[in-house]
């Protein structure tokens, strides 16, 4: 069951390739001996073109660090990132990033937030508006174009963020627990919407979550990380559930439960370790 899912997918250059990435931070305040904190150690993983990969792991295990490295927002201390075979330097222009917390520009209306990316790429807001309207409609927000972020609910803000990212049509999507702040119902709606959009236009997705159910129901592959510090990969599971999926219904199928149990067995020890560490510090 824990067969390595990478083999076949690696024939083409992977959309994202982490090569022994290590991220060490200068520790703030009280910390272990050498005054440094290694969030991620020797992490190597690949995301094939069009593949939906989720990364799960206990809290504080450096999941977001990995994503920031992939985005080019953070330089790894050692190791390298390759994007479609090319080494990454600076911001990853072929990736869209969906943040965990609110990242919409507060003084721009929903529409202007969606057009922002196109404006940054040299288009005028007027020229970009029709497509932005289309995208707002696609994420179910037609008619909300003149609302400011604070006038939208959490779920709606996430939809705007989704449209804001997808209008640029990036081949890679980096998602950092994008739905963790939402209630369960809204969350499942958003997950289904994401799957639908992804199904229509297959992009490589690196999806970070701490929710194993979410990871399994969305992904082609689930990667389990060890507890920090010095996070590394401890499991890599291919998810062979049929698509298209409904994230709520698929959770009831026997295969889902089987996968869940298998991955949870690997994860459990790490979760406890992570919890013990967070209690100590």
């Amino acid at each position, binding site marked *: 069951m824990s067969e390595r899912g990478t083999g076949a997918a690696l024939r083409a250059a992977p959309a994202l390739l982490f090569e022994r990435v290590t991220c060490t931070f200068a520790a703030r305040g009280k910390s272990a001996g050498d005054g440094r904190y290694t969030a991620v150690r020797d992490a190597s993983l690949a995301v094939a073109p069009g593949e939906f990969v989720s990364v799960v792991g206990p809290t504080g295990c450096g999941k977001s660090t990995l994503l920031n490295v992939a*985005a080019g*927002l953070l330089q790894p201390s050692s190791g390298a990132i390759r994007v479609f075979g090319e080494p990454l330097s600076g*911001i*990853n*222009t072929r*990736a*869209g*990033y969906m*943040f965990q*917390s*609110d*990242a*919409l*520009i*507060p*003084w*721009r*209306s929903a529409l202007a937030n969606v057009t*922002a*990316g196109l*404006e*940054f*790429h040299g288009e005028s807001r007027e020229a970009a508006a029709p497509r932005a309207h289309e995208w707002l409609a696609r994420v179910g927000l037609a008619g909300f174009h003149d609302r*400011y*972020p*604070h*006038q*939208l*609910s959490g779920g*709606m803000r996430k939809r705007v963020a989704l449209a*804001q*990212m997808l209008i*640029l049509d990036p081949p890679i999507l980096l998602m950092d627990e994008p739905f963790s702040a939402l209630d369960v119902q809204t969350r499942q709606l958003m997950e289904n919407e994401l799957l639908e959009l992804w199904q229509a236009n297959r992009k490589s997705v690196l999806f970070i979550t701490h929710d194993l159910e979410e990871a399994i129901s969305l992904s082609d592959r689930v990667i389990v990380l060890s507890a920090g510090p010095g996070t590394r990969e401890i499991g890599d599971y291919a998810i062979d559930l049929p698509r298209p999926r409904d994230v709520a219904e698929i959770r009831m199928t026997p295969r889902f439960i089987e996968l869940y149990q298998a991955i949870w067995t690997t994860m459990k020890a790490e979760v406890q370790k992570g919890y013990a560490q967070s209690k100590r510090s």
Partner: protein
Amino acid sequence: MRRASAADRGRIALYHALLLGLVFAFWYAMTTPGIVSPETAKNSAFFFGKPVEVLKVVWAWFSGGKIYPHLAITLVETLLAFVAGSVLGLAAGLWLALWPLAATLADPYIKAANAMPRVILAPIFAVWFGLGITSKVALGITLVFFVVFFNVYQGVKEVSPVVLANARMLGASRRALLRQIYLPSATSWVFSSLHTSVGMAFVGAVVGEYLGSAKGVGYLILQAEGVFDINTVFAGILVLTGCALLLDYVVTKAEARLLVWRPKQAETEAL
């Protein structure tokens, strides 16, 4: 917070008017012989003026048109000081916030300049720029500048790192970041300090006039004070207060328009 209903607001306005009436009545009573002893009335009229006389002066100013050129001068000075001080404060705030080396270098001097009682610069400005409006505007600028500067500096420092990272991921260049993220964020802080900075500009104009000028409401007050015409002094104060209230009202209106995107505490419009 609950919004006051129309009836509530009407009643509150009535109470406000009553309170004002009460103050004037007390003032009138204390300065009228017959209600208090002639001696007391004379004394308090000397120190506080007589309300009826004060209102008469105000009325004469406005009906005779004598006040308009002075008022215009004061308002022009206020406006110029506000605009120039804001622009300078915005530029300096942005510059220092985005260039840490400059900020480190300038830090002690900015602190010193801010700590200095800048009103004392008025005589120097009078020497440098003469008794015209320039010296008043200069004084106003020194007052407005720091209000705006500190707000902008803080505003830029507090731009959400997530919003910044997001803009970068969406392809914003350094220039675009400055124009689309830092500048709007800083501007919003300028607007939120609008009340203070407009007030400061007004103070700069009036104090400047008071310390040496040939025109303006501050000048009228100075002249009247020179001949112990206390009624005119109070009339000037009354006019200035009215002006300040009017400016404040305009600012409140402008703020509501310019900061629509800001969440207000009273209005949570979740959907």
